[in-house]
């Protein structure tokens, strides 16, 4: 058996240097469309406020300090993150079974399910959100139905709060968790589940011990995508959130567009971005632990 004895240790590090130049276009793009705009916004956020000019002459940290001392801002920030986390968790719980089914199924109905899954992407965001307004408003479809069957006497407050935003965002972003999961699940050989069951593991045990750990990359990619999209969403919270469901991006737009407070609005935008980076970073570290054994 000497021929089999020499295990090939995977050596990929040595090949990386030669491919470095290939990232140059991406780098240029990143700097041009990502770094420079951010720099501009950061600079703006450090300007003094003024009502006699677009921004004041000097530089100040006042926009940051006053925002960070402001419980109202903290409240909005907290709500934004909570909505993002809730949407992410619900999307995962709803999306995983769908992705799992799509990955396993060979039925002719699968393509129909695909269309169903992707349908939120086929309709414009504003139209979709408007449809949710029609469903969720005080005299909307949902409330009328509930009143008609006598479950409630007075309309439930389904929109102009976090609930409506959460529901609509979940609908909008569900495909963004299903698609990465689907790709991931399809890449897992069905032999692995068969091997597990041949070893005596039930379907449940097979799922928890084999399928779920191996689908962590899909879960990670999908949840980050949905979380980031949710906390930065603007149209849906702007239309459905009202005052009770106002999020950071709505507030930032109000500062920038409605009130023309560019420096303060820029500071809020930077705070939001920083918080998002911190949360995603923490989440990456957490999930990396769960994935450290994967190839």
């Amino acid at each position: 058996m000497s021929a089999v004895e020499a295990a090939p240790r995977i050596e990929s590090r040595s090949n990386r240097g030669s491919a470095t130049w290939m990232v140059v276009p991406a780098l240029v793009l990143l700097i041009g469309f990502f770094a420079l705009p951010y720099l501009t916004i950061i600079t703006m956020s450090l300007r003094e406020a003024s009502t006699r000019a677009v921004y004041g002459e000097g530089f100040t940290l006042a926009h940051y300090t006053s925002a960070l001392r402001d419980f109202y801002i903290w409240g909005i920030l907290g709500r934004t993150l909570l909505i993002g986390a809730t949407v992410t968790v619900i999307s995962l719980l709803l999306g995983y079974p769908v992705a799992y089914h799509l990955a396993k199924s060979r039925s002719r109905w699968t393509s129909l399910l695909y269309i169903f899954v992707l349908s939120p992407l086929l309709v414009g965001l504003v139209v979709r959100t408007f449809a949710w307004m029609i469903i969720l408003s005080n005299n909307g479809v949902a409330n009328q139905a509930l009143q008609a069957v006598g479950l409630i006497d007075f309309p439930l407050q389904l929109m102009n709060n976090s609930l409506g935003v959460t529901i609509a965002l979940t609908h909008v972003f569900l495909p963004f968790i299903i698609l990465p999961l689907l790709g991931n699940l399809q890449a897992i050989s069905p032999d692995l589940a068969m091997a597990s069951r041949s070893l005596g593991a039930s379907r449940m045990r097979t799922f928890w011990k084999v399928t779920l750990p191996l689908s962590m990359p899909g879960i990670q990619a999908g949840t980050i995508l949905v979380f980031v999209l949710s906390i930065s969403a603007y149209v849906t919270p702007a239309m459905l959130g009202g005052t009770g469901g106002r999020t950071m991006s709505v507030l930032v737009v109000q500062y920038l567009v409605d009130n023309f407070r560019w420096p303060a609005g820029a500071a809020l935008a930077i705070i939001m971005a920083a918080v998002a980076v911190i949360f995603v970073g923490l989440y990456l570290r957490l999930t990396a632990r769960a994935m450290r054994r994967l190839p």
Partner: protein
Amino acid sequence: MKLTRREFAVGMTAAIASMTLPRLATAQSSLVVPTYGGLWAKFWEEQLLPGLTSATGIQPQLDVGLGKDFVAKIRAGGDRSPYSIFMGNENIAAVLRAEGFFEPFDLAKVPNAAKTYPQFINKDAKGIRAIVSPIGLAYRTDLVKTAPTSWHDLWENPEFKGKTGLYQIGNTGAVLFLRLVAELFGNGPDDFDTAFAKIKELLPFTQASWSGEVATALIRGDAIIAPVDWTEIMTLQDKGAPVAIVAPKEGVLAFEQSFNLVGTGAEKDAAHAYLNYILDAKVQQDMAKAFYTSPSNNESVVDDALKARTPIVGPRMAEIKSYDWDSYVDKAAEIADRWNREMA
């Protein structure tokens, strides 16, 4: 101020884009005139601009957007504004005016200003509120038993409790209402403490970002009464919706489109000619027909049928409460923050 949803959605993009590309001002060859989307853009393209060209020979370029876009572009343009003339709600125009972007009109070059109701011409000709859309109290005719006659009805008619729709503070409609309430209940349009206290009494109320959203709330029945502009309600009536609008006895508010001469613009003579044409009696009449504004020219004729639907015309223009916004600019941020915190 009228916004379509699309315009609303691109607002953020425009602002960010103008922040990130601050010196990308267009080298202009002729007059660029800003206007809003929808009915407005259609009117500008089909009637106003061809009319202007045949009357003056000026061939302007049209830039469709919203007032806040125009602000962003002028601010980002720095000393090379893309526009020579600005159009936007007076309270928004006041921001740019305070920042020093505008200069007074030479009224000698605007003969029609003499025929304009004087309340719409700012002191020293620093801006003319040329297009006026009055705001009254709109209500659902099928859901309201006692039609409103006074702004006080919002507080006093129990039918309206929890069923009122108001603009949110990002919309000019909200700051207009705030100053009206300050005037009605306090010691003048700057008595914001009183205004806040009184409006808080109306909670909970539906908040809308633009007139279309107010209309939606009314049609869905989420709100049965709301201050909103005639334009919106007339359009709803044209579609057969059970809504009506009244002019409360204390007077009405109005979205006043303020035209201003941009100091860094290159086409100042053309800008004057354009404004003069906007103020023309015939043009004002046509606008009234196209989107139910109230002519600002005292020689404009409104036929009886239209007058029955939009009563704030002619002598009744005096019922419009036009406020001074130049001093408000300094308080705007604080008031917006306060509204955010208290009206939730």
